């Protein structure tokens, strides 16, 4: 089941689930592809892990007609059947680049090494892209280190910061305001406006983090701020 809500003058969202479920995420990505190619002339079609967001030109599009067409596509989309790549991301897990690492470990009654081991031993799936260019929402973070967002977001954290929010993890590709718990830093460039594609992540891709040393971090272009 799903629910479709009109949000603003020219946008709507379809919620498919209130829980992370990778098979649902992949189905949403397929629905988004069909909405883009079959309905055309829309301003934004953005799949997320549990929802699909659509923004349209109110002068060209009748919201009620659009709603029924989207419902038609949902009704006739069963599963996705693409193949996905695996991406390995180096990560320097250290309090010098990770303001929340120590606190998270203490809250979870784990050692820092255990947090690192749990985070880097899990294979994640790209469930959504967005928030910022090159930002990919990765699921699922092991329950033992899953931590809610900060109650007040930080105004700025440096590029490369690796964060946890509930059962999602992600790398912030550029300096940004951030509400996630920062546990490490990835020195790779994950967004380049002149590259094709501009970001390596596609929904469905697999991602693994590899712990690196301070020297490796510096060697790969890592920065301390």
């Amino acid at each position: 089941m799903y629910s479709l809500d009109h949000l603003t003058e020219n946008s709507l969202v379809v919620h498919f689930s209130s829980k992370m479920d990778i098979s649902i995420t992949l189905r949403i990505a397929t629905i988004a592809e069909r909405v883009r190619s079959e309905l055309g002339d829309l301003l934004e079609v953005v799949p997320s892990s549990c929802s699909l967001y659509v923004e349209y030109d109110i002068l060209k599009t009748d919201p009620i007609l659009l709603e029924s067409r989207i419902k038609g596509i949902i009704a006739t989309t069963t599963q996705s059947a693409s193949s996905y790549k695996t991406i390995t991301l180096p990560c320097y897990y250290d309090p010098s680049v990770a303001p929340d690492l120590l606190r998270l470990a203490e809250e979870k009654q784990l050692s820092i090494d255990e947090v690192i081991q749990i985070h880097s031993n899990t294979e994640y799936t790209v469930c959504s892209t967005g928030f910022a260019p090159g930002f990919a929402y990765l699921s699922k973070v092991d329950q033992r280190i899953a931590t809610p967002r900060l109650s007040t977001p930080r105004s700025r954290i440096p590029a490369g910061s690796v964060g946890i929010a509930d059962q999602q993890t992600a790398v912030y590709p550029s300096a940004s305001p951030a509400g996630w718990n920062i546990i490490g830093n990835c020195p790779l460039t994950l967004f380049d406006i002149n590259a094709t594609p501009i970001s390596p992540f596609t929904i469905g891709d697999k991602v693994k983090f590899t712990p690196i040393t301070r020297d490796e971090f510096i060697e790969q272009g890592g920065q301390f701020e």
Partner: protein
Amino acid sequence: MCISQGGAADIHAHCWANHILGNPSHSPTLEILVGNTEILALEDTHLSLTGAEMHASIDDKVIPNWSSFTLKKGQHLKLRYASSGLRSYLAIKGGFKATSVLNSVSTVLRNDIGSNLQDGSTLHNNLTDSSIHYKRVPSKFIPKYNSELTINVISGSPSALFTQTFTVSPNTDRTGVRLFTDTPLPSGSGIISESNPLGTIQLPPDGNPIILLNDRQTQGGYQKLGYVTKVDLAKIAQARPGTILRFKKASLTEAREAWIKFLKFFI
């Protein structure tokens, strides 16, 4: 897309600045925050200025806001600090020349796209016919940037948002306008990240709402209380720190009608 929307924060002032010069409404304008800016004409140039009141003058002679004018070669246009509103829009006949990235000339600093002008930057316009009819925006379309505002919000759910007053925080930029309130709103848990339209009012767990503007991150996981109507976003973009806000429920149908009317006028 994962890149921030960008564009003029106050689309009302931006569109009028172009309109009184006869430019298409999407022509690039300069968004000038707070003021204290001086511009020297290297050629005779037709310009217009709208938005915040910055007491513009040409070679020390005051000119009216919300008007088009000519800056002759060698003349200085001077903007003082804004006395009401936050952002001025300076348009040039033909539109400013700017490099397009992904079919937009917007500057979005958070994505390192576009250019933040520095002291000494030189700007050019796209060549066009050089005639001008001096125009002033009709007074009924010139907003007053009051220190207390009532803002229309599209919202499906009842919320304490509509019963309290809020104050605009100084910690406010093109990403979002942070608000604070004496009694922080009860907040639910975060949601799984999803897209945030322009004007989303999100509620972090600290109970102080944030209204998301043009340079917002495209996704977010905080609870959402509603969406400021497109027409009222122009007021939010001009709200100075300390401005008192009240929110009022708007009907989606009426908000759509008002937005369509706005678009049809300028497009």
